[in-house]
Structure formats: C-alpha cells, structure tokens
C-alpha cells in the first residue's frame, strides 16, 4: 500500500513539475506582441526596419528589442537582410533560402503567400510510419511479456532484461521513423513551392528542382475553389498542419506550365495539391484578383501573432449574454 502511495506521489510530483513548466512556457509575451503589432502595422508594405526605429517608437531598451526580434526571426515572421530587418508576410511558410529565391525570381515583388504542396506521399508516409511505430513499439514489449521465447531471444542478444531490450528496440524504431520523416520532408516538401505575389500573380514549381516555371498572371484568374478530400479532412482533424486542394480557374490558356525540356503547356485550370492553410490562400488569391489587399491588411496582425506564437491563447468568441427574465 505504501509502495502504491509512493507511486501516486511520484506521478503527482511529475505532473506538478511539468504543469509549472507548461504554465511558465505558455505565458503570453506582451512586449513581443507590442513589437510585432508595431512592425505589422507600420512596415507591412515598406518591410524594412531597424532596431533603433522600434526602440525609439516603443520606448523600449535596444537589447530587449533585439532579443524579441531574434525570437520573431526564429518563428519566421521577420528576416535579417543586408538592408536591415525585413517583415516576412505572415502567410509565407518557406525556408529563408526559398523565400530569398522567390524574391529574386519575382524581382522583389511583395510575396503574400508562400508554401510547399504536401504531396500524397508525405501524408501516406506519415500514416504508415504512425502504424509501424504503433505496432512495433507496442507489440514487441507485449510479446516479451506474453510469449517467453521472444524474451529469451532478446536476452540472448542484448544480455539484459528482455523487456528493457524490447523497449530499446521500440525507442530505436521511433528514432528511425523520426529521422526518416525529416529526410522525406526535406525531399518532398521543399520542392513543390507555390507563391502568390502582389504583382506577379501565382508562381509554382512544375517538377522536382524547378525554379517556379509555372505561373498564372493575376489578371487572368477567373475563379478559385477549395476542395478538401476525406483524407485531408482526417489530416486536418488529427494532423499538425491543415491542408486542402486549391483549384484556380483562369481565362483561356491562363495557366502556363513548363516541363523539364522547356516545352510550354497552357491550360485553363490548375490544382494545387494539399496546400497548407488553403482557406487563407483562397482569400489571398481573391484579394490579388480583385486588386484589393484590404483583407491582408486587416488580418495581418492576427496572422503574424499566430505564426509568431506570441498569442498561443486565442480569444474565444464570447457567448451571447443571457437575457434576464423579469
């Protein structure tokens, strides 16, 4: 009984310690939020700014501003360039290298959205890895417990407690799966890039190692649709990054695509597969189609704060006030 109470106490201590860590790490950061709000409000279109400008405008110490800017750089909200700090649009989910590539290819156009298409391979791979991890990490230790020959075999190889050896195998499998996932993400996600620029329109990679050779001029966009498949719904419900397909319809021959040999193909429609945050891409494309970036201006602070993680706690919509019965 005492053993059991000790066990409960140990678990409770663990919960309390990590609860406190969680409490401390999820605290909102008002200074960062203030700096970010200022940057997004003032430099959304100019984009370049300096530490001095911000510290003077907000009456904050320069070292504090520098620290917060570095944190924002980590979150991919701003970027340090030769001209100074630069605001990256909140809906740009590209690596620094690819963002610079996109800026170069659009001749410094204002990039409003940038992401990689998460091809089916990535999603299928994620699902298969999940199943594999689940099976091996659970079944090997269970087999050791219920079927002694497996335990004896593991003990003869590793020379330790068979259950511990089975846990070690499970841990190794998790590591391999994680490393494999990283490699696959690198290979697939960072290749099929889509960007939406204010003047250039929509640019996209047509094949592996492409340099944004596909494009749709903004004046040629006729309609935009979002299509979310059942698998994507499942991914959006249980996965990390919400995805969906975005279909852009154009006037005749509005979609220009090049293959590896340089042959040009013109179509009237293009489907961007498993795009992260498709609803936001839809709004951005609608905005450039109409030539009105008001939506972006209105929502940029919220999007930037969401991306920077300065506001992990989003205000929930207030419930309608109950009427008092007289």
């Amino acid at each position: 009984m005492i053993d059991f109470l000790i066990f409960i106490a140990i678990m409770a201590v663990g919960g309390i310690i990590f609860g406190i860590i969680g409490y401390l790490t999820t605290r909102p950061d008002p200074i960062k939020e203030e700096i970010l709000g200022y940057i997004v409000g003032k430099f959304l279109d100019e984009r370049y700014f300096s530490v001095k400008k911000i510290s003077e405008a907000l009456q904050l110490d320069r070292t504090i501003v520098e620290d917060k800017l570095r944190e924002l750089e980590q979150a991919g909200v701003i970027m340090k360039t030769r001209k100074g700090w630069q605001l990256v649009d909140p809906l740009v989910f590209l690596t620094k290298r690819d963002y610079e590539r996109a800026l170069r290819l659009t001749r410094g156009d204002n990039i409003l959205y940038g992401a990689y298409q998460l091809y089916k391979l990535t999603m299928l791979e994620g699902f298969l890895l999940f199943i594999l991890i689940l099976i091996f990490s659970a079944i090997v230790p269970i087999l050791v417990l219920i079927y002694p020959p497996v335990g004896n075999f593991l003990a003869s190889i590793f020379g330790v407690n068979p259950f511990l050896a089975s846990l070690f195998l499970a841990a190794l499998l998790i590591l391999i799966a994680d490393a494999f996932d990283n490699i696959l993400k690198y290979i697939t996600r960072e290749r099929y890039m889509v960007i939406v620029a204010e003047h250039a329109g929509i640019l996209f990679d047509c094949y592996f190692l492409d340099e944004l050779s596909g494009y749709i001029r903004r004046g040629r966009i006729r309609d935009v649709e979002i299509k979310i498949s059942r698998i994507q719904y499942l991914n959006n419900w249980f996965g990390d990054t919400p995805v969906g397909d975005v279909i852009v319809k154009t006037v005749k021959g509005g979609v220009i695509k090049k293959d590896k040999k340089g042959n040009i193909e013109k179509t009237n429609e293009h489907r961007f597969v498993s795009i992260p945050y498709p609803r936001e891409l839809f709004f951005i494309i609608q905005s450039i189609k109409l030539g009105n970036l008001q939506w972006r201006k209105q929502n940029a602070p919220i999007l930037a704060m969401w991306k920077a993680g300065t506001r992990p706690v989003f205000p929930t919509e207030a419930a309608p006030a109950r009427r008092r019965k007289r």
Partner: protein
Amino acid sequence: MEEQKLKMQADIERWYRPYPALQIFFFIMVMLFISIFLYYITQTIVIPLEIIITFWFGAASFFYPFFIKIRRRSAMILGWVLYGITLFGGVYLGYKYLSVSIERIREFVLFIAVVEVIGIELLHHIVSELKHYRSSKVIIADVILSIIFGACMFIFFYGIPGVVSGILDLFWSIIVTIVLVILFAYAIFPERPF
C-alpha cells in the same frame, strides 16, 4: 466582395478543426475504450495496478495531441501535466520492475537511453511547438542529451574495461554508437514547421 465574408476569426485554425466539444468527446471516447480494454485485460491476467495506471496515462499522452487541437493555455498546460505524469510513472516502473540500479551498469545506461528517447519524442509529440523551436538553449540541450545518449550506448555495447563487458568489440561499438548518436541528434534537433 462582402466584407463579412472575408472577416476572419481570431483563431486561424478553428476553421479546419472539429468543434472543441467534439474534440473532447472523441478523446473521452478513446480513453473510455482503453479503460474498458484494460479492465478486461486485468480480468484475465494479473497486472499490478501501477502498470495499468501508467499505461492509461501513457495512452492519454499519446492520443491527447491527436484529438485535442484547442489552442488554449489550459489545454496546453494539461498536455504538459500528462507528460510529467507519464514520464515519472514510467521511470518509477522501470526502477521497480526492471530492477534498474547503478550496480547493473549496462541495464542502467540502457534504461537512461530509452527514457531519453521516449521522453523527448513524447515531449515533441505533446508539445509540438518545441519540435520547431530553435534557440541556442535548445541546441545546447540537444547536444548535451546527444552526448549522454552516446555515452550510454557506448557503455551498453562495449562496457567499461575491468568493470563490465559489453556485446561488441571496440571497433563495432564505436561505429554503432556513432550511427545511433547521429540518428538521435537528427531526430531531436529542431525542425522546420509546415
């Protein structure tokens, strides 16, 4: 275009996720199913209550991030709490049932390595923001953890001369340790979001 149509909710992800009540309902249903499964298991096999409780919390920590997508502070803190309970419970069970002690040095170091791997992977799973958070502190912590993992693996495979012998010779112990440390470091180092 109507202003109303373009008006965005404060929470950008809300549009993609199920309603919070539905998320909680799914999670409760899964945990209920696991509880019933554990109940029937205990009816056929005698398993100590401590193992059952730790397994239950382990399952809760595993399924929590899949079902609960509520971006509220309380939900995030609950994830941390579940992690702490599972980690401490697991270490206690290891100490008690696997007879892990400093005297049995190879088992001891293997246990540390297993706790490191499962602990970090579970933490990255529950607090996914940590997986992407790159700062000097995080990188130093990852380097230290990789060194500890490497030392544990080397002792496990090669042993300590004059104290305990391992299962591989010096050459293969070094090779296997290097491969595993690279794998470990690559898996735990911060990765890019999206």
